């Protein structure tokens, strides 16, 4: 069997795809690549299916041995990538041969890197997805993070165009972020003054930030409503617990919750937040559902246009 073997799993390496949808009635969260646009670029460069299984390597330190002829692409956070000790470019298709050792160093910009392989890693999905959710013990290999010795089945691929994404199109991490927010849910329960404070002041990412959500610290804001009946939480929802400090709920969020929410962050910006380290400064800005829809459609058109112009090295 053609495979890649995990020599070192690094800080936290998880098999992911776009996520697990339509299973929330069982209490299952979506999971999926935290920085979906970067993950999709890795698959796109390799000509993979958009939902192909890849590895999300948080913080870095992953080492794999290829036991097959194949191609890989690493995108997302900036980190040193080497193949047999020789530096290799990120955001580009790289050829590997049996015995090659692929090594991801530690991140210098951003937090999560994505390693995709030609054809995707062949892993049996659970509830329609390979996405690993550690809290649930679902997805991946037996619900676990990657461990030394894990074998990941791949297809043998001997020919593939060596595409790369020009640097101008790669996302920039570790800047001050502006998160576009669609007001919704209990937004009306925050007075105009509270909402002004929320948009005018900056927040910082705290160390309590993981795949479930990012807790922020800054100006506390208060809802007139303290508790409500538990209700469905969508991706990017910004929950305001009684301490007034926002939590942006991300891929591994609990499906139901009873704290007031002011709205939800645009998915494109959630992806940038997912790359932000503790201490990153950010602002919220309100956009309408129409503006959000526009932004999503533009991003799609732009990505497709860039893809059609990519040239082989």
């Amino acid at each position, binding site marked *: 069997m053609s495979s890649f073997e995990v020599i070192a799993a690094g800080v936290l390496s998880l098999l992911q795809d776009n996520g697990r*949808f*339509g*299973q*929330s*009635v*069982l*209490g*299952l969260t979506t999971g999926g690549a935290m920085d979906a646009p970067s993950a999709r670029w890795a698959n796109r460069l390799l000509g993979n299916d958009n939902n192909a299984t890849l590895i999300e390597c948080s913080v870095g330190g992953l080492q794999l041995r290829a036991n097959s002829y194949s191609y890989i692409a690493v995108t997302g956070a900036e980190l040193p990538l080497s193949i047999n000790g020789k530096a290799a470019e990120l955001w580009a298709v790289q050829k590997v041969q049996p015995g090659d050792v692929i090594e991801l160093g530690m991140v210098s910009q951003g937090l999560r890197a994505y390693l995709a392989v030609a054809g995707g890693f062949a892993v049996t999905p*659970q*509830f329609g997805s390979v996405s690993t959710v550690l*809290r*649930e*013990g*679902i997805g991946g290999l037996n619900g676990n993070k990657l461990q030394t010795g894990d074998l990941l089945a791949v297809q043998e691929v001997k020919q593939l165009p060596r595409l790369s994404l020009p640097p101008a199109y790669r996302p920039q991490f570790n800047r001050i972020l502006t998160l576009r927010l*669609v*007001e*919704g*849910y209990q937004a009306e329960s925050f007075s105009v003054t509270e909402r002004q404070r929320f948009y005018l002041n900056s927040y910082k990412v705290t160390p309590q930030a993981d795949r479930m959500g990012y807790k922020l610290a800054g100006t506390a804001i208060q809802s007139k409503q303290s508790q*409500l*009946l*538990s*209700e*469905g*939480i*969508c*991706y*990017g*929802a910004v929950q305001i617990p009684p301490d007034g400090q926002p939590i942006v709920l991300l891929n591994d969020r*609990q*499906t*139901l919750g009873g704290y007031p929410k002011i*709205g*939800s962050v*645009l*998915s494109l910006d959630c992806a940038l937040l997912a790359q932000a380290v503790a201490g990153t400064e950010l602002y919220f800005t309100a956009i309408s*559902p*129409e503006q*959000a*829809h526009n932004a*999503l*459609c533009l991003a*799609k058109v732009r990505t497709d246009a860039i893809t059609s112009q990519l040239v082989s090295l």
Partner: protein
Amino acid sequence: MSKPQYQLTVAGENALMLYFDQRIDPGISALVHQACALIRAELAAELIDVLPSYASVLVMFNPLRTDHFRVQAQLQHCLAQLQNNDSQSGKQVELPVYYSEESGPDLALIAQTKNISIDEVIQRHQAISYRVYAIGFAPGFAYLGEVDPLLQMPRLATPRAKVPRGAVAIADRQTAVYPAQSPGGWNLIGLCPTRMFNPQQTPAMPVSVGDEVRFVAVDKAEFLRLGGELQGAEL
């Protein structure tokens, strides 16, 4: 009979919330159940997920195939069929429970707080048929209500680090069976041998939102025969 009242609110870039009257009530829960079926039929291909809870439904759609305007119009169209009638929309499910001080370490506390016998706590918990109002918190965690007011207990001040799989528990006027070992702050009164969430089985859960659940006491021998486990359930 008057038409059911509801409210539609934006939730996010590709999500809308449908709210009914915000209270825990079998009639409201029945509306939630009806609404989910209507929405699934009406939106089908554009839907990403539909998530019911006590008195609301989160509707998530594919933003590259449709938009808020269109989905709102479709929701208004299909929700016109909602009816204020039955509160009995799901299936009936019986769950066996081994109630004892061995398997339910908070039985004595509840009995003492409420000034009734442990047997009465056990009787009262079985006397009511509960509705599955919501599933969440963890895979397979079904919120059942409402518990006899006499058994109403606040959550523990300090949650347990480890509640065993199958623990039958009470918090406020809700009861539940823990689907897997996890931390938890509910009051434990027994153990249920039925797996509430089994990824290897189809369906993965014995209950879904809108179903009616009855608890039936079994003795220790029957509990073990049904596959229940006491060891590992360090209580």
